[in-house]
Structures are given as C-alpha cells and as structure tokens.
C-alpha cells in the first residue's frame, strides 16, 4: 500500500533536498490535525486509566473505608502473588486460552477452507451463517449454552444419557472440568468465525499458480496443504492466533454468566472485577488489573520476539 505522496517521487525528492519544506510541514500539521483527536481519545481512555491503576495499586485503599488510605508500596502485589487463588485463576485463564485457540485454529481453518472452495451459489449462504455467531452478544451465547446443559432446564443430559459419564443427574456446573467444558464450548462457538475470516483472507492471498503447479507435479491434497498453502499463509495464521489468544485471555462474560467463578472456574478478569467492584478493594483490584495488563504485554512480547509475528505489517506498509 502506498500513499499519494509516495507515488510522486519528484515531490518527495524535492522535499528531502529542501529539508522540511513548507509543503511537508503543512502536510504534517494537517495530518496531526486530523489524526490527533482520535489519537488523544485513545490515550485518554487507556493510557490514563492504566497509569491511574498502577498508582492506586500502591495504596492500601478500600472504598468502604476511604479515610484509611495509606501508601504501601508494592505490598498489594505481594499479597496478590502469594495468594493461591491468583495462581489458580491464572492457570484456569491460560488453560482456557490454550484450549480455545488450538481448537478454534483447527475448526476455523476447516471453515475457511470450506468458504474458500465453496461454489459461488453457496458462498454467500456459508459466510452469512458463519457471521451469525460473530454478531451475537457473548452473554446471549453464554445463556444459550448454559440453559442447554443446565440440570433443570437443559436437554443435553437427556440427549446424551447413553454416553458413559453423562446421565440425567449430571450437574455440569458443579465441578471444574465439566463447567470449563461448557464455558469453552460457548467461547469457541462465538469466536471461531472471527479467526476463520482472518484465515480466509490469508488463504485468498496464497497464489493459485503455486497450488496448480504442485498439483501438476503430482502432489496429493495433503501435500499441497502442508507444503504450499500453510507455509504461504504463516503470517496470517500467526496474527490470527495472537489476536485470539489475547482476546481469550481476557475472558469474562461466559464465566460470569455460567458459574460466576464457582468450583475452580475463576479467571483473572473475574478475579479483578470481584476484588475491585465486588469487594471495593481498589488497591488490590488495581494490582490485579496491572498484573493482567503485564500478562498481555508479555504474550505480545513473546509472540513478536520469539515467533516473529509481524503485528504491525499493515502499519509499516503505511509508513
């Protein structure tokens, strides 16, 4: 992608020769005049709150006793990090993230292949169907899955009573394993379409000549997929995985609706919510919020440094 300015090398060269020419300066001013408001709003709604959260996390501060506010340094972090509940919530969050991303990647890729290969008459229908879960409110999805599995109003137990381990008495939301199963099902259903559309875009960028050449050379379907298609869409896969991993890591809605963190299903976002909004422990809650934020930064860092995910590929194209 190039900008108009890039297309006029003569202008650019002239500007470069004259240092920052008037034209370039007025273009820069207009650029910031237009992009500035959006930029400031974005900083105001995220950078400011996270700095405030960090500041609040240094205090012993409960809203129920606002006058007892006192500076405690990093003590809140020590409290949080030495609490087994935090580590359990972190473990559950990581578990949900890894399982959903792996399944969504496989399922999403299958759906993307179907949409990519679909004959023209079916393409619109398939894409419309895929988009429905994407548009549905997560809370609605959570209730739909919850009611289907619920021991009272559900029908899943009746349908699958023949499966060993499932009977009409099975209360899915009374143990950790079965609760997480339903939570993950709802999460996968709702967010696979997104990953699948990203992969579809990646698929359509694989040059068809390459695939045809491999076919002529006698490669099987599986060989073409693993040797030609997948390596050529590695970038798209990595971006999709990273985006979904970060999204899954902040899971909240499904857990809140189905179990509210009971039976070992507490996740980090819910822990932060219950600490600060539920128990009004602003200091402790802020510390958890900051830790959650650091986890997200860490995931990004690992992805970009170790797996070389080119997150800013588009941004570079612009610059």
């Amino acid at each position, binding site marked *: 992608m190039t*900008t108009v300015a890039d297309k006029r090398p003569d202008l650019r060269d002239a500007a470069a020769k004259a240092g920052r020419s008037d034209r370039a300066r007025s273009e820069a001013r207009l650029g910031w005049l237009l992009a500035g408001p959006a930029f400031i709003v974005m900083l105001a709604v995220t950078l400011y709150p996270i700095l405030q959260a960090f500041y609040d996390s240094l205090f012993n501060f409960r809203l129920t006793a606002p006058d007892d506010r006192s500076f405690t340094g990093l003590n809140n972090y020590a409290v949080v990090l030495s609490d087994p509940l935090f580590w359990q919530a972190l473990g559950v969050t990581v578990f949900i993230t890894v399982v959903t991303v792996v399944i969504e990647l496989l399922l999403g890729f299958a759906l993307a292949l179907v949409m990519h290969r679909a004959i023209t008459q079916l393409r619109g229908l398939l894409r419309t169907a895929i988009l429905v879960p994407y548009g549905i409110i997560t809370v609605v999805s959570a209730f739909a899955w919850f009611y289907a599995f619920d021991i009272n109003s559900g*029908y899943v137990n009746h349908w699958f009573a023949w499966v060993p381990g499932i009977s009409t008495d099975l209360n899915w939301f009374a143990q950790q394993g079965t609760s997480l199963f339903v939570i993950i099902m709802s999460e996968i259903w709702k967010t696979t379409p997104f990953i699948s559309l990203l992969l579809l875009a990646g698929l359509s960028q694989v040059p068809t000549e390459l695939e045809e050449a491999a076919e002529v050379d006698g490669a099987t379907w599986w060989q073409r997929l693993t040797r030609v298609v997948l390596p050529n869409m590695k970038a798209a896969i990595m971006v999709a995985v990273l985006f979904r991993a970060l999204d899954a890591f902040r899971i909240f809605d499904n857990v809140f609706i189905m179990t509210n963190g009971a039976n070992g299903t507490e996740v980090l976002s819910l822990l932060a919510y219950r600490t600060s909004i539920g128990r009004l422990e602003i200091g402790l809650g802020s510390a958890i919020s900051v830790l959650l934020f650091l986890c997200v930064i860490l995931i990004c860092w690992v992805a970009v440094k170790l797996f070389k995910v080119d997150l800013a590929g588009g941004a570079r194209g*612009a610059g």
Partner: protein
Amino acid sequence: MKQLSTRAKIAWALITIFVLAYALFPIVSIFATSFKLPSQLNLGLFWPKTWTTVNYEEILAPGGSAQTLFLSSLRNSIGISLIATAIAVVLATLAAYAIARLDFPGKRMVLLTALGVSIFPVISIVTPLFNLWRNIGLYDTWLGLIIPYLSLTLPISIWTLAAFFRQIPWELEQAAQVDGATTWQAFRKAIVPLAAPGVFTTALIAFFIAWNDFVYGISLTSTDRARPVPAALAFFTGASQFEEPTGSISAAAIIVTIPVVILVLLFQRQIVSGLTQGAVKG
C-alpha cells in the same frame, strides 16, 4: 462454472448443513426455550411441549415482571452504542483519511496505538474508571459508558477505515477537477460514493462491538438509568422469587439477537471485507 458430480453435490450439501447447524444451533436452542411454559422448562425437551408467548409478555407487555428493566436497558443499549459508534466513526474517518493520504511523522504510531488499545484488557480500565466516575458523577450515566466504549469502537474503526481508504483511487478527485469540477464537487461526486460503503461497514462492525459489551456495562452502572442489555440480562429475576428467569432471559436474548441476524443477512459481504481488511491487510 464446471459441472459438479453427484458426489460433489452431496458432499457440499452435507457441508452446508453442518455449517448451518454449527452457526444456528445455539440460537435455535434459546429460541425454543423462549417459547416454553415456565412449568414445562424442566421436561428435558428441546422444543416446547406447549408453545407460549408468556415469556415475551413478561418483558414487553405493561405489567410484565421484567418489562421496565428490559425496555430501559434496550433504550440504553441502543442509545449508548449508537453514540459511541458515531463518535468513533467520525474521529476514525478523519484519522484514517490522514493515514491513507498524507505523509506525516508519527503516522505509524497512531496505527500502533490503535492496535495496542484494541488488545488492552478491558478489566484493567474498569477499576480506575469505577473510582473516578463515582467521584466526578459519571457513574451510572450514558456518558460514563460512552467514553470507555470508545476504547472498544475507535481502534477497530481506525484500522478498518485506513484499510478501506488506502484502496480508494484518489486520483479520481484530480481527474474530476481537471474535467472542470470544483474541489467540493470532485470530492462529493468522485470520493464520497467510494468512501461511503467503507464508512458504513466500519460503523456496523463498531456497533456490534459496543452492543456486545458486558464488562463496562455491569461495572459502571447500577440502575435502569444506564444499564445496557447484556448487563441487564444478568440481573433478571423470575416472575416470583421461586421462579428462575430462564424464560424471560431467553425471550430478551432473542429480541436483541434478531436485529443482529437481519444486519448480518443484509450486509454479509461488506462485514466480511471490513473485518478481513482491517485485520490482515491492514
């Protein structure tokens, strides 16, 4: 179009049925639940034994147990999401225009900031805002939700619109001017028709995201004044205290899902191109 063999036809039919079942099953499931009699909820059946609209009366008819709660939350959700979308799209249109057409230092930083904001854990913003909003009187108000909603709607709008705008052949504008059109005419006749679909698609995607919010909704509101639908659903109570609100929640869920399904049916092609351009091609 090459002729399909019978086997291929059957395979495609099966695949289509499978995809449709995947996409629609949970919705059909909650649809069926919404028409069940409260007394017949526990029969373990998928379809209602007796179809009834009693759950819809609870949330829509005057005197229904959840009517005030549901209708006010519906008003809040529509109002707050629309305003947050409108502000985001206006700001993002200006920013994306600058990113696509102008060369200025820090352009990449604007895009990277948008990316950073879009992956920001929402709950990290909620704690400080909760405290601040209570102090300055924005707690439980529309404005108190519209502002944080911008953190959801603005980044994706910037990315999607920047991607759309980069594909517009801006030379058309100059061409129109050469042909004798004024600057304004050239912009209106040549550029607006090309840019409008992108702006509209972006608005649609941003609206979906605002409409879906739950964390801000339950954290920054406490009453009917500003509570949006997803948060209100979590606070539904049954017709009596011995009754689960299953039916009314299902009915409310169906009502807020219908517009989404209609929008998806109408604008499937645009939404797909908007989502994929913004995310992959950047």
